[in-house]
Protein backbone atom coordinates (compact mmCIF):
# COMPACT_ATOMS: atom_id res chain seq x y z
CA UNK A 1 0.00 0.00 0.00
CA UNK A 2 1.24 3.44 -0.82
CA UNK A 3 1.95 5.91 1.94
CA UNK A 4 -0.72 8.46 2.59
CA UNK A 5 -0.71 11.59 0.48
CA UNK A 6 1.03 14.43 2.29
CA UNK A 7 -1.20 17.25 3.46
CA UNK A 8 -0.82 20.37 1.35
CA UNK A 9 1.70 22.45 3.25
CA UNK A 10 2.40 26.14 2.97
CA UNK A 11 5.47 25.33 0.97
CA UNK A 12 3.61 23.50 -1.75
CA UNK A 13 0.97 26.24 -1.78
CA UNK A 14 3.73 28.81 -2.26
CA UNK A 15 5.16 26.70 -5.02
CA UNK A 16 1.85 26.53 -6.83
CA UNK A 17 1.48 30.32 -6.60
CA UNK A 18 4.97 30.61 -8.07
CA UNK A 19 3.91 28.16 -10.77
CA UNK A 20 0.95 30.37 -11.71
CA UNK A 21 3.18 33.44 -11.82
CA UNK A 22 5.65 31.65 -14.04
CA UNK A 23 2.88 30.53 -16.34
CA UNK A 24 1.29 33.97 -16.61
CA UNK A 25 4.31 36.29 -16.90
CA UNK A 26 5.08 35.67 -20.61
CA UNK A 27 1.53 36.66 -21.49
CA UNK A 28 1.87 39.85 -19.44
CA UNK A 29 5.16 40.70 -21.15
CA UNK A 30 3.74 40.11 -24.62
CA UNK A 31 0.62 42.13 -23.82
CA UNK A 32 2.69 45.04 -22.45
CA UNK A 33 4.97 45.20 -25.49
CA UNK A 34 1.97 44.94 -27.79
CA UNK A 35 0.08 47.69 -25.96
CA UNK A 36 3.09 50.04 -25.89
CA UNK A 37 3.83 49.44 -29.56
CA UNK A 38 0.29 50.44 -30.48
CA UNK A 39 0.06 53.40 -28.10
CA UNK A 40 3.35 54.87 -29.24
CA UNK A 41 2.32 54.35 -32.82
CA UNK A 42 5.14 51.98 -33.81
CA UNK A 43 2.53 49.76 -35.33
CA UNK A 44 -0.62 51.17 -36.80
CA UNK A 45 -3.43 49.06 -37.97
CA UNK A 46 -7.19 49.11 -37.82
CA UNK A 47 -7.25 45.33 -37.71
CA UNK A 48 -4.91 44.88 -34.76
CA UNK A 49 -6.62 45.87 -31.50
CA UNK A 50 -4.57 46.63 -28.39
CA UNK A 51 -4.77 44.17 -25.48
CA UNK A 52 -6.72 46.78 -23.49
CA UNK A 53 -9.35 46.90 -26.25
CA UNK A 54 -9.52 43.10 -26.27
CA UNK A 55 -9.94 43.08 -22.49
CA UNK A 56 -12.70 45.68 -22.76
CA UNK A 57 -14.41 43.55 -25.42
CA UNK A 58 -14.15 40.54 -23.14
CA UNK A 59 -15.74 42.53 -20.33
CA UNK A 60 -18.56 43.63 -22.62
CA UNK A 61 -19.21 40.08 -23.85
CA UNK A 62 -18.88 38.42 -20.47
CA UNK A 63 -20.43 40.93 -18.06
CA UNK A 64 -22.24 43.84 -19.68
CA UNK A 65 -24.03 41.78 -22.31
CA UNK A 66 -23.38 38.31 -20.93
CA UNK A 67 -23.65 36.66 -24.33
CA UNK A 68 -20.34 34.87 -23.86
CA UNK A 69 -21.89 32.34 -21.49
CA UNK A 70 -24.65 31.65 -23.97
CA UNK A 71 -22.00 30.82 -26.58
CA UNK A 72 -20.01 28.75 -24.11
CA UNK A 73 -22.91 26.68 -22.86
CA UNK A 74 -24.02 25.91 -26.42
CA UNK A 75 -20.49 24.76 -27.25
CA UNK A 76 -20.07 22.64 -24.15
CA UNK A 77 -23.44 21.02 -24.60
CA UNK A 78 -22.40 19.88 -28.10
CA UNK A 79 -18.99 18.82 -26.86
CA UNK A 80 -20.46 16.81 -23.99
CA UNK A 81 -23.04 14.97 -26.10
CA UNK A 82 -20.63 14.22 -28.94
CA UNK A 83 -17.75 13.26 -26.70
CA UNK A 84 -19.71 10.95 -24.43
CA UNK A 85 -21.17 9.20 -27.45
CA UNK A 86 -17.63 8.81 -28.76
CA UNK A 87 -16.43 7.38 -25.43
CA UNK A 88 -19.31 4.93 -25.13
CA UNK A 89 -19.26 3.70 -28.69
CA UNK A 90 -15.48 3.97 -29.09
CA UNK A 91 -14.66 1.90 -26.01
CA UNK A 92 -17.23 -0.73 -26.97
CA UNK A 93 -16.01 -1.01 -30.55
CA UNK A 94 -12.36 -0.99 -29.45
CA UNK A 95 -12.99 -3.76 -26.93
CA UNK A 96 -14.91 -5.88 -29.46
CA UNK A 97 -12.17 -5.49 -32.04
CA UNK A 98 -9.44 -6.45 -29.62
CA UNK A 99 -11.32 -9.47 -28.30
CA UNK A 100 -12.37 -11.04 -31.58
CA UNK A 101 -9.63 -11.79 -34.13
CA UNK A 102 -12.25 -12.15 -36.85
CA UNK A 103 -13.79 -8.71 -36.27
CA UNK A 104 -10.33 -7.26 -36.06
CA UNK A 105 -9.22 -8.79 -39.34
CA UNK A 106 -12.37 -7.42 -40.95
CA UNK A 107 -12.41 -3.90 -39.61
CA UNK A 108 -8.99 -2.80 -38.39
CA UNK A 109 -7.66 -1.87 -41.87
CA UNK A 110 -10.78 0.19 -42.61
CA UNK A 111 -10.41 1.89 -39.27
CA UNK A 112 -6.76 2.78 -39.79
CA UNK A 113 -7.61 4.26 -43.19
CA UNK A 114 -10.45 6.33 -41.79
CA UNK A 115 -8.37 7.61 -38.88
CA UNK A 116 -6.23 9.53 -41.34
CA UNK A 117 -9.16 11.50 -42.76
CA UNK A 118 -9.18 14.94 -41.15
CA UNK A 119 -12.37 15.13 -39.07
CA UNK A 120 -13.24 18.41 -40.65
CA UNK A 121 -13.31 16.76 -44.09
CA UNK A 122 -16.41 14.80 -43.03
CA UNK A 123 -18.18 18.06 -42.43
CA UNK A 124 -19.27 18.76 -46.03
CA UNK A 125 -20.76 15.24 -46.23
CA UNK A 126 -22.59 15.77 -42.97
CA UNK A 127 -23.80 19.20 -44.02
CA UNK A 128 -25.31 17.68 -47.15
CA UNK A 129 -26.85 14.64 -45.51
CA UNK A 130 -27.78 15.85 -42.02
CA UNK A 131 -28.48 19.51 -42.56
CA UNK A 132 -26.82 22.67 -41.35
CA UNK A 133 -27.74 22.46 -37.68
CA UNK A 134 -26.82 20.99 -34.33
CA UNK A 135 -26.98 17.35 -35.41
CA UNK A 136 -24.18 17.89 -37.88
CA UNK A 137 -21.93 19.63 -35.35
CA UNK A 138 -22.49 16.96 -32.71
CA UNK A 139 -21.74 14.21 -35.23
CA UNK A 140 -18.51 16.00 -36.17
CA UNK A 141 -17.51 16.11 -32.50
CA UNK A 142 -18.36 12.43 -32.21
CA UNK A 143 -16.23 11.52 -35.22
CA UNK A 144 -13.39 13.64 -33.86
CA UNK A 145 -13.24 11.65 -30.64
CA UNK A 146 -14.37 8.24 -31.85
CA UNK A 147 -11.32 7.10 -33.86
CA UNK A 148 -8.66 8.00 -31.30
CA UNK A 149 -10.64 6.36 -28.50
CA UNK A 150 -11.41 3.19 -30.45
CA UNK A 151 -7.84 2.78 -31.62
CA UNK A 152 -6.28 3.28 -28.19
CA UNK A 153 -8.79 1.04 -26.43
CA UNK A 154 -7.95 -1.70 -28.87
CA UNK A 155 -4.20 -1.25 -28.44
CA UNK A 156 -4.56 -1.08 -24.65
CA UNK A 157 -6.47 -4.33 -24.33
CA UNK A 158 -3.97 -6.05 -26.59
CA UNK A 159 -1.20 -4.98 -24.27
CA UNK A 160 -2.72 -6.62 -21.19
CA UNK A 161 -0.31 -9.49 -20.39
CA UNK A 162 -1.67 -12.81 -21.58
CA UNK A 163 -0.68 -14.42 -18.26
CA UNK A 164 -2.94 -12.10 -16.30
CA UNK A 165 -5.90 -13.03 -18.46
CA UNK A 166 -5.14 -16.74 -18.20
CA UNK A 167 -4.66 -16.47 -14.43
CA UNK A 168 -7.98 -14.70 -14.05
CA UNK A 169 -9.72 -17.28 -16.26
CA UNK A 170 -8.14 -20.04 -14.18
CA UNK A 171 -9.65 -18.50 -11.08
CA UNK A 172 -13.06 -18.52 -12.71
CA UNK A 173 -13.29 -14.89 -13.77
CA UNK A 174 -15.17 -14.64 -17.05
CA UNK A 175 -17.24 -12.45 -19.30
CA UNK A 176 -18.14 -9.01 -18.03
CA UNK A 177 -16.32 -9.60 -14.77
CA UNK A 178 -13.11 -10.35 -16.67
CA UNK A 179 -13.57 -7.20 -18.71
CA UNK A 180 -14.14 -4.88 -15.76
CA UNK A 181 -11.70 -6.48 -13.32
CA UNK A 182 -8.76 -7.31 -15.60
CA UNK A 183 -8.95 -5.96 -19.13
CA UNK A 184 -10.24 -2.47 -18.37
CA UNK A 185 -7.78 -1.63 -15.55
CA UNK A 186 -4.95 -3.27 -17.47
CA UNK A 187 -5.59 -1.18 -20.56
CA UNK A 188 -6.25 2.05 -18.73
CA UNK A 189 -2.92 3.73 -19.55
CA UNK A 190 -3.59 3.46 -23.25
CA UNK A 191 -7.31 4.11 -22.84
CA UNK A 192 -6.67 7.38 -21.01
CA UNK A 193 -4.25 8.41 -23.74
CA UNK A 194 -7.10 7.79 -26.17
CA UNK A 195 -9.53 9.80 -24.06
CA UNK A 196 -7.10 12.71 -23.89
CA UNK A 197 -6.33 12.65 -27.60
CA UNK A 198 -10.05 12.26 -28.23
CA UNK A 199 -11.07 15.33 -26.28
CA UNK A 200 -8.45 17.39 -28.11
CA UNK A 201 -9.69 16.25 -31.51
CA UNK A 202 -13.32 16.62 -30.44
CA UNK A 203 -12.70 20.18 -29.29
CA UNK A 204 -11.07 21.12 -32.60
CA UNK A 205 -13.82 19.41 -34.55
CA UNK A 206 -16.39 21.33 -32.51
CA UNK A 207 -14.85 24.70 -33.30
CA UNK A 208 -14.59 23.87 -37.01
CA UNK A 209 -18.11 22.50 -37.11
CA UNK A 210 -19.59 25.52 -35.38
CA UNK A 211 -17.89 27.85 -37.81
CA UNK A 212 -19.09 26.08 -40.90
CA UNK A 213 -22.60 24.93 -39.97
CA UNK A 214 -24.66 27.86 -41.13
CA UNK A 215 -27.88 27.25 -39.22
CA UNK A 216 -26.61 27.40 -35.68
CA UNK A 217 -26.79 30.63 -33.75
CA UNK A 218 -24.69 30.10 -30.66
CA UNK A 219 -21.31 28.62 -29.97
CA UNK A 220 -17.82 29.93 -29.37
CA UNK A 221 -16.71 28.99 -32.89
CA UNK A 222 -19.75 30.73 -34.34
CA UNK A 223 -18.91 33.85 -32.35
CA UNK A 224 -15.44 34.07 -33.92
CA UNK A 225 -16.75 33.34 -37.39
CA UNK A 226 -19.57 35.85 -37.22
CA UNK A 227 -17.26 38.61 -36.02
CA UNK A 228 -15.89 38.64 -39.54
CA UNK A 229 -19.13 40.03 -40.89
CA UNK A 230 -18.89 43.16 -38.77
CA UNK A 231 -15.11 43.27 -38.91
CA UNK A 232 -14.82 43.11 -35.14
CA UNK A 233 -11.31 41.80 -34.65
CA UNK A 234 -11.47 42.19 -30.85
CA UNK A 235 -14.25 39.60 -30.62
CA UNK A 236 -12.12 37.26 -32.71
CA UNK A 237 -9.21 37.64 -30.33
CA UNK A 238 -11.40 37.02 -27.27
CA UNK A 239 -12.87 33.93 -28.91
CA UNK A 240 -9.56 32.52 -30.13
CA UNK A 241 -7.85 32.98 -26.76
CA UNK A 242 -10.77 31.32 -24.99
CA UNK A 243 -10.72 28.45 -27.48
CA UNK A 244 -7.03 27.88 -26.75
CA UNK A 245 -7.46 28.18 -23.01
CA UNK A 246 -10.46 25.82 -22.94
CA UNK A 247 -8.60 23.26 -25.03
CA UNK A 248 -5.74 23.44 -22.57
CA UNK A 249 -7.97 23.21 -19.50
CA UNK A 250 -10.00 20.31 -20.93
CA UNK A 251 -6.78 18.35 -21.24
CA UNK A 252 -5.29 19.33 -17.91
CA UNK A 253 -8.30 19.09 -15.62
CA UNK A 254 -10.72 16.23 -15.64
CA UNK A 255 -8.75 13.69 -17.65
CA UNK A 256 -5.63 14.58 -15.70
CA UNK A 257 -7.58 13.91 -12.48
CA UNK A 258 -8.73 10.59 -13.82
CA UNK A 259 -5.15 9.74 -14.65
CA UNK A 260 -3.93 10.71 -11.18
CA UNK A 261 -6.70 8.80 -9.44
CA UNK A 262 -6.10 5.59 -11.36
CA UNK A 263 -2.96 4.70 -13.29
CA UNK A 264 -0.61 6.98 -11.38
CA UNK A 265 -1.91 5.86 -8.01
CA UNK A 266 -1.61 2.24 -9.03
CA UNK A 267 1.97 2.87 -10.07
CA UNK A 268 1.41 1.98 -13.75
CA UNK A 269 3.04 5.16 -14.93
CA UNK A 270 5.49 7.50 -13.29
CA UNK A 271 4.07 10.49 -11.48
CA UNK A 272 4.72 13.79 -13.15
Amino acid at each position, binding site marked *: MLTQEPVVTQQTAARSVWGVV*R*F*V*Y*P*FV*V*VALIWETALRLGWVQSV*SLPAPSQIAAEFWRLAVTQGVLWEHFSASFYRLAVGYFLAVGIGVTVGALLSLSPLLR*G*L*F*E*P*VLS*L*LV*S*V*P*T*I*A*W*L*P*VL*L*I*TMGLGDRTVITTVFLGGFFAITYNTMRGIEMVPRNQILAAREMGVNGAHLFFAVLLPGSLVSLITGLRLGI*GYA*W*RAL*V*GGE*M*LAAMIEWGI*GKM*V*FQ*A*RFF*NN*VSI*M*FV*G*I*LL*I*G*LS*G*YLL*DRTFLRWLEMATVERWGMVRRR
Partner: protein
Amino acid sequence: MLKRKAALAAIPIVIFLLGWEALSRGSLLNPYLFPPPTTILMELGNLFMKGMPAQSALLMHVGMTLWRVLLSVVLGIVAGVIVGVAMGLNRAVYSFFDPLITVLMPIPGIALAPLFIVWMGFGNQTIVSLGVLSAFFPVVYTTVAGVRSVDPQLVRAAQMMGSRPIGVVLNVYLPWAATYVFNGVKLGLARCWMTIIAVEFVAASNWGMGYMIWNAAENLRADVVYGGILLLIVIYFILEKALINRLESRTIARWGMIRQA
Protein backbone atom coordinates in the same frame (compact mmCIF):
# COMPACT_ATOMS: atom_id res chain seq x y z
CA MET B 1 -0.94 -14.97 -44.88
CA LEU B 2 -0.76 -11.44 -46.19
CA LYS B 3 -3.22 -12.32 -48.94
CA ARG B 4 -5.64 -13.73 -46.43
CA LYS B 5 -5.38 -10.57 -44.38
CA ALA B 6 -6.04 -8.38 -47.39
CA ALA B 7 -8.98 -10.53 -48.46
CA LEU B 8 -10.49 -10.32 -44.98
CA ALA B 9 -10.05 -6.55 -44.92
CA ALA B 10 -11.69 -6.24 -48.33
CA ILE B 11 -14.90 -8.03 -47.27
CA PRO B 12 -16.56 -5.16 -45.33
CA ILE B 13 -15.45 -2.59 -47.91
CA VAL B 14 -16.85 -4.60 -50.81
CA ILE B 15 -20.13 -5.33 -49.00
CA PHE B 16 -20.44 -1.67 -48.04
CA LEU B 17 -19.81 -0.44 -51.59
CA LEU B 18 -22.09 -3.04 -53.21
CA GLY B 19 -24.82 -2.27 -50.70
CA TRP B 20 -24.49 1.45 -51.30
CA GLU B 21 -24.53 0.97 -55.07
CA ALA B 22 -27.63 -1.26 -54.91
CA LEU B 23 -29.56 0.90 -52.44
CA SER B 24 -28.76 4.06 -54.32
CA ARG B 25 -29.63 2.60 -57.76
CA GLY B 26 -32.84 1.19 -56.31
CA SER B 27 -33.60 4.65 -54.85
CA LEU B 28 -33.87 3.26 -51.34
CA LEU B 29 -31.17 5.78 -50.52
CA ASN B 30 -31.67 9.25 -51.89
CA PRO B 31 -29.37 9.21 -54.95
CA TYR B 32 -28.85 12.98 -54.72
CA LEU B 33 -27.38 12.68 -51.22
CA PHE B 34 -25.80 9.24 -51.66
CA PRO B 35 -24.90 8.84 -55.32
CA PRO B 36 -23.75 5.29 -56.21
CA PRO B 37 -19.97 4.73 -55.94
CA THR B 38 -19.64 4.14 -59.68
CA THR B 39 -21.12 7.60 -60.34
CA ILE B 40 -18.62 9.08 -57.88
CA LEU B 41 -15.72 7.47 -59.69
CA MET B 42 -17.06 8.58 -63.06
CA GLU B 43 -17.35 12.13 -61.76
CA LEU B 44 -13.74 12.03 -60.57
CA GLY B 45 -12.80 10.89 -64.07
CA ASN B 46 -14.79 13.79 -65.55
CA LEU B 47 -13.05 16.26 -63.27
CA PHE B 48 -9.71 14.80 -64.26
CA MET B 49 -10.50 15.23 -67.96
CA LYS B 50 -12.00 18.69 -67.52
CA GLY B 51 -9.80 21.30 -69.17
CA MET B 52 -7.66 18.65 -70.83
CA PRO B 53 -5.38 18.66 -72.71
CA ALA B 54 -4.13 22.06 -71.49
CA GLN B 55 -4.62 21.29 -67.81
CA SER B 56 -6.70 18.97 -65.69
CA ALA B 57 -9.04 20.58 -63.17
CA LEU B 58 -8.62 17.76 -60.70
CA LEU B 59 -4.83 17.81 -60.92
CA MET B 60 -4.86 21.58 -60.43
CA HIS B 61 -6.84 21.19 -57.20
CA VAL B 62 -4.62 18.39 -55.92
CA GLY B 63 -1.42 20.09 -57.01
CA MET B 64 -2.36 23.38 -55.38
CA THR B 65 -3.12 21.71 -52.06
CA LEU B 66 0.07 19.64 -52.12
CA TRP B 67 2.13 22.70 -52.98
CA ARG B 68 0.64 24.62 -50.05
CA VAL B 69 1.24 21.69 -47.71
CA LEU B 70 4.84 21.28 -48.86
CA LEU B 71 5.65 24.96 -48.50
CA SER B 72 4.02 25.18 -45.06
CA VAL B 73 5.65 22.03 -43.73
CA VAL B 74 9.13 23.08 -44.84
CA LEU B 75 8.81 26.59 -43.38
CA GLY B 76 7.18 25.21 -40.22
CA ILE B 77 9.96 22.67 -39.67
CA VAL B 78 12.76 25.20 -40.14
CA ALA B 79 11.17 27.70 -37.76
CA GLY B 80 10.20 24.97 -35.32
CA VAL B 81 13.69 23.48 -35.12
CA ILE B 82 15.32 26.89 -34.60
CA VAL B 83 12.91 27.92 -31.83
CA GLY B 84 12.98 24.42 -30.35
CA VAL B 85 16.78 24.33 -30.13
CA ALA B 86 16.87 27.80 -28.57
CA MET B 87 14.29 26.73 -26.00
CA GLY B 88 16.06 23.47 -25.30
CA LEU B 89 19.42 25.15 -24.73
CA ASN B 90 18.38 28.12 -22.64
CA ARG B 91 16.23 27.96 -19.52
CA ALA B 92 15.10 31.58 -19.71
CA VAL B 93 13.94 31.20 -23.32
CA TYR B 94 12.22 27.97 -22.36
CA SER B 95 10.32 29.41 -19.41
CA PHE B 96 9.19 32.35 -21.54
CA PHE B 97 7.95 30.44 -24.57
CA ASP B 98 6.65 27.28 -22.95
CA PRO B 99 3.41 28.79 -21.52
CA LEU B 100 2.73 30.66 -24.76
CA ILE B 101 3.11 27.48 -26.77
CA THR B 102 0.96 25.41 -24.41
CA VAL B 103 -1.95 27.80 -24.86
CA LEU B 104 -1.48 28.54 -28.57
CA MET B 105 -0.91 24.93 -29.66
CA PRO B 106 -4.43 23.58 -29.05
CA ILE B 107 -6.04 26.39 -31.07
CA PRO B 108 -7.25 24.79 -34.29
CA GLY B 109 -6.07 26.48 -37.48
CA ILE B 110 -9.60 27.05 -38.66
CA ALA B 111 -10.37 29.14 -35.56
CA LEU B 112 -7.65 31.55 -36.64
CA ALA B 113 -8.92 31.66 -40.22
CA PRO B 114 -11.35 34.61 -39.80
CA LEU B 115 -8.60 36.70 -38.21
CA PHE B 116 -6.09 35.90 -40.92
CA ILE B 117 -8.68 36.57 -43.60
CA VAL B 118 -9.11 40.07 -42.17
CA TRP B 119 -5.35 40.53 -42.16
CA MET B 120 -4.33 38.95 -45.43
CA GLY B 121 -7.46 38.39 -47.45
CA PHE B 122 -8.52 35.25 -49.28
CA GLY B 123 -5.91 33.07 -50.90
CA ASN B 124 -2.46 31.68 -50.50
CA GLN B 125 -1.08 34.05 -47.88
CA THR B 126 -3.76 33.16 -45.34
CA ILE B 127 -3.75 29.46 -46.14
CA VAL B 128 0.02 29.02 -46.05
CA SER B 129 0.48 31.15 -42.91
CA LEU B 130 -1.99 28.97 -41.02
CA GLY B 131 -0.36 25.87 -42.47
CA VAL B 132 3.06 27.02 -41.23
CA LEU B 133 1.67 27.67 -37.75
CA SER B 134 0.06 24.24 -37.57
CA ALA B 135 3.30 22.48 -38.56
CA PHE B 136 5.42 24.72 -36.35
CA PHE B 137 3.97 23.86 -32.93
CA PRO B 138 4.42 20.06 -32.93
CA VAL B 139 7.98 20.45 -34.23
CA VAL B 140 8.90 22.95 -31.50
CA TYR B 141 7.35 20.76 -28.86
CA THR B 142 9.24 17.61 -29.79
CA THR B 143 12.52 19.38 -30.62
CA VAL B 144 12.58 20.90 -27.13
CA ALA B 145 12.07 17.49 -25.59
CA GLY B 146 14.79 16.02 -27.80
CA VAL B 147 17.36 18.71 -27.06
CA ARG B 148 16.69 18.53 -23.33
CA SER B 149 17.22 14.75 -23.36
CA VAL B 150 20.77 15.01 -24.71
CA ASP B 151 23.32 13.41 -22.41
CA PRO B 152 25.36 16.33 -20.98
CA GLN B 153 28.50 14.19 -21.03
CA LEU B 154 28.38 14.09 -24.82
CA VAL B 155 28.16 17.86 -24.90
CA ARG B 156 31.12 18.21 -22.54
CA ALA B 157 33.12 15.71 -24.53
CA ALA B 158 32.50 17.65 -27.75
CA GLN B 159 33.36 20.94 -26.08
CA MET B 160 36.53 19.48 -24.61
CA MET B 161 37.64 18.35 -28.00
CA GLY B 162 37.37 21.91 -29.18
CA SER B 163 33.94 21.99 -30.86
CA ARG B 164 32.52 25.46 -31.22
CA PRO B 165 28.97 26.14 -29.93
CA ILE B 166 27.47 25.97 -33.40
CA GLY B 167 29.30 22.70 -33.99
CA VAL B 168 27.92 21.30 -30.75
CA VAL B 169 24.40 22.14 -31.88
CA LEU B 170 24.85 20.69 -35.35
CA ASN B 171 26.87 17.61 -34.43
CA VAL B 172 25.61 16.67 -30.99
CA TYR B 173 22.20 18.14 -30.19
CA LEU B 174 20.49 17.81 -33.54
CA PRO B 175 21.54 14.22 -34.35
CA TRP B 176 20.62 13.17 -30.84
CA ALA B 177 17.26 14.90 -31.05
CA ALA B 178 16.58 13.58 -34.57
CA THR B 179 14.09 10.89 -33.47
CA TYR B 180 12.11 13.47 -31.52
CA VAL B 181 12.21 15.99 -34.34
CA PHE B 182 11.04 13.30 -36.72
CA ASN B 183 8.03 12.57 -34.56
CA GLY B 184 7.27 16.27 -34.57
CA VAL B 185 7.53 16.35 -38.34
CA LYS B 186 5.05 13.47 -38.63
CA LEU B 187 2.59 15.15 -36.29
CA GLY B 188 3.20 18.47 -37.99
CA LEU B 189 2.51 17.05 -41.43
CA ALA B 190 -0.75 15.50 -40.23
CA ARG B 191 -1.89 18.73 -38.60
CA CYS B 192 -0.76 20.84 -41.51
CA TRP B 193 -2.66 18.67 -43.97
CA MET B 194 -5.78 18.91 -41.86
CA THR B 195 -5.48 22.66 -41.37
CA ILE B 196 -4.84 23.41 -45.03
CA ILE B 197 -7.90 21.42 -46.15
CA ALA B 198 -10.05 23.12 -43.52
CA VAL B 199 -8.78 26.62 -44.26
CA GLU B 200 -9.27 26.02 -47.98
CA PHE B 201 -12.97 25.53 -47.19
CA VAL B 202 -13.26 29.15 -46.12
CA ALA B 203 -10.29 31.03 -47.52
CA ALA B 204 -9.34 29.60 -50.91
CA SER B 205 -10.31 31.63 -53.90
CA ASN B 206 -10.21 29.19 -56.80
CA TRP B 207 -8.05 26.08 -56.44
CA GLY B 208 -7.39 23.46 -53.78
CA MET B 209 -9.04 20.23 -52.71
CA GLY B 210 -10.72 21.91 -49.75
CA TYR B 211 -12.12 24.53 -52.10
CA MET B 212 -13.30 21.86 -54.52
CA ILE B 213 -15.10 19.90 -51.79
CA TRP B 214 -16.64 22.93 -50.15
CA ASN B 215 -17.81 24.43 -53.39
CA ALA B 216 -19.38 21.09 -54.32
CA ALA B 217 -21.16 20.90 -50.95
CA GLU B 218 -22.60 24.37 -51.43
CA ASN B 219 -23.89 23.38 -54.84
CA LEU B 220 -25.21 20.06 -53.48
CA ARG B 221 -22.91 18.06 -55.72
CA ALA B 222 -22.63 15.06 -53.41
CA ASP B 223 -20.68 13.04 -55.99
CA VAL B 224 -17.84 15.55 -56.02
CA VAL B 225 -17.84 15.77 -52.21
CA TYR B 226 -17.48 11.99 -51.80
CA GLY B 227 -14.97 11.81 -54.62
CA GLY B 228 -12.91 14.54 -52.99
CA ILE B 229 -12.89 12.79 -49.64
CA LEU B 230 -11.89 9.52 -51.30
CA LEU B 231 -8.99 11.38 -52.89
CA LEU B 232 -8.03 12.87 -49.52
CA ILE B 233 -7.80 9.36 -48.07
CA VAL B 234 -5.73 8.05 -50.98
CA ILE B 235 -3.35 11.01 -51.06
CA TYR B 236 -2.73 10.97 -47.32
CA PHE B 237 -2.12 7.24 -47.44
CA ILE B 238 0.49 7.75 -50.15
CA LEU B 239 2.08 10.68 -48.32
CA GLU B 240 2.40 8.65 -45.17
CA LYS B 241 3.53 5.33 -46.65
CA ALA B 242 5.66 6.52 -49.53
CA LEU B 243 7.11 9.67 -48.10
CA ILE B 244 7.29 9.54 -44.34
CA ASN B 245 8.00 5.85 -43.88
CA ARG B 246 10.64 5.88 -46.60
CA LEU B 247 12.29 8.95 -45.16
CA GLU B 248 12.25 7.32 -41.75
CA SER B 249 13.91 4.10 -42.94
CA ARG B 250 16.54 6.07 -44.89
CA THR B 251 17.49 8.27 -41.95
CA ILE B 252 16.89 7.53 -38.29
CA ALA B 253 16.20 3.82 -38.74
CA ARG B 254 19.41 3.45 -40.74
CA TRP B 255 21.35 5.28 -38.07
CA GLY B 256 20.05 2.70 -35.62
CA MET B 257 18.03 5.19 -33.59
CA ILE B 258 14.78 3.28 -33.85
CA ARG B 259 14.05 -0.34 -34.55
CA GLN B 260 13.35 -1.05 -38.17
CA ALA B 261 9.79 -2.29 -38.47
